[in-house]
């Protein structure tokens, strides 16, 4: 019987208490003696063949007979008033089915409280009109045929100018650009007392850039009505969130909206909910009676698809002479765009990484004329860790300690925020393993590189959630041929979710991996599952899958017992292994799983499973450490990331092959943010100069350092029944901090602004050379 329970769930650095309906999972955590054959094995991805043959269906590949092409006309100004829209009549445009704009609005004219085609456009790329045509060419021609008159308005682009006195309003009538002047604040202990005890102090300011997610598949949707039923194919991380948004926007019941997404071409946080494009396509499809596809072009994606908000941060750290932290103050401002919110958990690492008794933090969101800042892989934590861990290195130098020793000294034994113990924490081990692998303690003995190159070493720590939690559900079915279908309402955004959930299901049933098929990304097929974000997918859905499959197995064993003439024996008298059900006390009494299924003659065994509550009074966190070696050319300012040693504690590793790949990807995106990524906006025009994949530098294969990945691989039985924690976000968190520390080490000057482009590095070198010695 399901019961209503309170449980604490962490998402992207914020802990919330949820009231949720939970059922007993009906499974105990796997113990040391659990016989796991698929779990823990480096299995190639189950949907890999579709990917390598070009058969994998992405939203941009969905093409129905008669499908129309929608395109959006977007503002070429960072801030303007739309004074007139002059669109030709549809009769003048062969093959054009529909044009919507301010004066000719769609039947639903707002989305999430904002007009679809507002009079005031507050960012380059804001929607001004929609055209729907027979094909791509017709849509392109129609876009060109629309003339829009704008009255340009004053704009503000950067954080600093948005915060300056008398700054222009990014959005008219808001009375200032700070979204939450009171800030999201946190305080523990007593700052005054802390500073009194501080013998040494550090006071530094940091900046990080607006960084575009740049998924290779831009935001895209195909909408199709069949009578009163709407199906939305959306390139998304969360089909259920999209369903909710679309149903609410259209004012219809959720059961009338089905959302499907088979493969996603990257999301990284940018594709968590329905967008304005989603609603426009759904409305256009209803209006025209045809399927309508709308995909953003690259330029649109880069100006309107979202970005990691730029940050300005100030960190003040006080410590005793022996390096013991006594107080930290951390204030952050985030560039949230014209319609953004109050900001992400930039100061989360400062609150939770070290055992420091007195801590005060604040985060404020700031409006500026850009699209909406969005969650991007460990939002806030990447930027905050950069600031905190840079400050720790400066502190280490001041107290005359090695950076690693300073961190070991201040490592928190329990969660500093709640005072609760962790379910597991392997941070000290991660430090030690990483230090050994990179040769940290012998690093000064290596001869320096020749010519203009200088070598530097840096390290940084990672803390993040990743514990997941309810609600997450799964349904498993045993098909008449012994096949197993597992339906889960999550998404596989490239992390390998399908594969690890298949491994879990296969081991629970004692069948081979090829007998299992996991279906994700379909609101109609699967019960509710969380959005694949916040490193919560595996730790939430994994236990639900185990429970669902176990519920099936109980029924299969019941049938097997009857078939074996052992009706009186309970479920626990039997076990399942190698595709057979057998009596524990007499393994010769056995029957193949497949035979049981076949003899059920079309009766489908169905099992429900749901994620149980998180443990009370315990914090679930992931931890890790990165050690980086860089070479810096002091003549050109070029930085080469040579080597990254990454050690992560994420509980049990279900699939070492895909897990290592996740770490590679996080590190490479971290290298991008550290060295090359960042939107460049022209102050004179307010327009982005980097709105394509040439100007906006994402790392190429040539920018890839040597990467050495290790996992502690210690199952966390207290966290959940599969013992695994999330891994999506942890590997990007410490990379920029460790890289910045390494560059600072190489050039002998503290770097505080990302990205560390050659120009930026030369600036540090020049200021250092001009400093009176």
């Amino acid at each position, binding site marked *: 019987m399901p019961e209503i329970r309170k449980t604490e769930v962490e998402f992207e650095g914020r802990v919330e208490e949820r009231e949720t309906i939970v059922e007993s999972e009906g499974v105990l955590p796997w113990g040391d003696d659990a016989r796991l054959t698929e779990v823990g094995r480096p299995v*190639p*991805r189950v949907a*890999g*063949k*579709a*990917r*390598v*043959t*070009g*058969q*994998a*269906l*992405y939203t*941009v*590949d969905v*093409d129905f007979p008669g499908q129309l092409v929608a395109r959006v006309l977007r503002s070429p100004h960072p801030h303007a008033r739309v004074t007139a829209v002059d669109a*030709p009549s549809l009769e*003048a*445009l*062969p093959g054009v089915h529909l044009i919507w704009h301010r004066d000719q609005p769609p039947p639903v004219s707002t989305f999430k409280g904002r007009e679809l085609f507002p009079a005031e456009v507050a960012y380059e790329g804001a929607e001004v009109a929609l055209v729907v045509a027979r*094909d*791509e*060419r017709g849509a392109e*021609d*129609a876009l060109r*045929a629309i003339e829009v008159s704008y009255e340009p308005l004053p704009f503000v682009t950067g954080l600093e100018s948005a915060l300056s006195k008398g700054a222009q309003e990014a959005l008219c009538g808001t009375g200032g650009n700070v979204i939450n002047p009171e800030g999201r604040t946190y305080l523990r202990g007593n700052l005054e007392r802390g500073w009194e005890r501080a013998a040494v102090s550090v006071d530094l300011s940091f900046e990080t850039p607006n960084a575009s997610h740049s*998924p*290779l*598949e831009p935001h895209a949707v195909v909408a199709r009505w069949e009578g009163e039923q709407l199906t939305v194919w959306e390139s998304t991380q969360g089909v259920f969130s999209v369903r909710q948004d679309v149903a609410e926007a259209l004012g219809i019941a959720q059961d009338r909206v089905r959302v499907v997404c088979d*493969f*996603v*071409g*990257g*999301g*990284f946080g940018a594709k968590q909910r329905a967008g304005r494009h989603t609603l426009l396509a759904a409305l256009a499809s209803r209006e025209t009676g045809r399927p309508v596809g709308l995909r953003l*072009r*690259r330029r649109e994606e880069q100006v309107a698809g979202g970005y990691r908000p730029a940050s300005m941060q100030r960190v003040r750290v006080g410590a005793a002479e022996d390096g013991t932290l006594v107080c930290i103050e951390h204030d952050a401002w985030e560039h949230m765009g014209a319609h953004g919110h109050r900001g992400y958990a930039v100061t989360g690492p400062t609150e939770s990484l070290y055992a420091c008794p007195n801590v005060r933090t604040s985060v404020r969101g700031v409006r500026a004329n850009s699209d909406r800042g969005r969650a991007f892989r460990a939002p806030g934590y990447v930027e905050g860790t950069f600031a905190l861990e840079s400050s720790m290195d400066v502190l280490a130098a001041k107290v005359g300690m090695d950076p690693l020793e300073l961190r070991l000294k201040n490592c928190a034994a329990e969660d500093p925020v709640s005072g609760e113990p962790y379910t597991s924490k392997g941070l000290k081990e991660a430090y030690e393993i990483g230090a050994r692998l990179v040769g940290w303690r012998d690093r000064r003995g290596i001869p320096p590189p020749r010519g203009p190159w200088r070598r530097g070493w840096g390290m940084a720590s990672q803390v993040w959630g990743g514990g997941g939690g309810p609600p997450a559900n799964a349904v498993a079915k045993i098909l008449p041929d012994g096949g197993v279908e597992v339906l889960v309402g999550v998404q596989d*955004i*490239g*992390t*390998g979710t399908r594969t690890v959930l298949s491994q879990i299901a296969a081991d629970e049933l004692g069948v081979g991996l090829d007998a299992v098929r996991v279906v994700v990304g379909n609101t109609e097929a699967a019960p509710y599952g969380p959005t694949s974000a916040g490193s919560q997918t595996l730790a939430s859905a994994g236990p639900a899958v185990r429970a669902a499959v176990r519920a099936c197995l109980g029924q299969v064993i019941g049938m097997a017992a009857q078939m074996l003439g052992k009706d009186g024996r309970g479920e626990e008298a039997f076990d399942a292994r190698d595709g057979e059900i057998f009596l524990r006390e007499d393994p010769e009494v056995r029957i193949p799983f497949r035979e049981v299924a076949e003899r059920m003659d079309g009766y489908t065994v169905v099992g429900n499973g749901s994620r149980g509550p998180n443990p009370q009074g315990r914090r679930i966190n992931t931890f890790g450490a990165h050690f980086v070696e860089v070479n810096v050319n002091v003549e050109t300012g070029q930085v080469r990331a040579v080597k990254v040693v990454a050690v992560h504690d994420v509980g049990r590793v279900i699939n070492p*092959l*895909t897990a290592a*790949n996740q770490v*590679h*990807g*996080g*590190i*490479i*995106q971290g290298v991008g943010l550290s060295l090359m990524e960042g939107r460049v906006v022209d102050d004179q025009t307010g327009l982005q100069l980097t709105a*394509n*994949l*040439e100007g906006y530098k*994402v*790392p*190429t*294969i*040539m920018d*890839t350092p040597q*990467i050495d990945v290790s996992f502690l691989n210690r199952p966390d039985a207290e966290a959940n029944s599969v013992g695994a924690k999330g891994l999506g976000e942890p590997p990007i968190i410490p990379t920029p901090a460790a890289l910045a520390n390494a560059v600072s080490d190489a050039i002998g000057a503290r770097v505080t602004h990302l990205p560390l482009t050659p120009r930026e590095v030369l600036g540090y070198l020049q200021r250092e050379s001009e400093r009176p010695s």
Partner: protein
Amino acid sequence: MSITSQGPGPVDVTLTVNGRSVDVHVEPRRTLLSVLREELGLTGAKEGCGEGNCGACTVLLDGHAVYACMTLAVECDGGEIRTVEGLADGEELHPVQGAFLEHDGYQCGFCTPGQIMAAVALLERCPSPTEDEVRQGMAGNLCRCGAYPNITASVIAAADRMRQKDA
């Protein structure tokens, strides 16, 4: 004012795609990518940028890797095109496909068809590449997920397989 685009109307283009001859009747402004995807239903090649920056649309034209988004269909008249859909021999994957599968040379998979075609072209002109040569050869293909270490490993492994097959 005429609002439809000016210029010559559709023209006939003959292509050999994955060994089969096909005739299409398309406007000269159409790219090879749009013809492959929209006219021929070959959606393996992807549009990641539409301007020759990302490589997700890479296909082979007369054995050379090209960005299909930067190639007009009319330029390919009489040419031989190979796409990711034409690599496998029935159920048997091409060694490059097999290596990407085994070495997890992708994450989301969107760039994968382009990566694989770039690798096929690389290995045809350089059957025993060093790691550096692989990186040089694959530098025109972006993977935003950052699966690069495994992409390098996949291409090296594919080279081994192809040499063994030829031996």
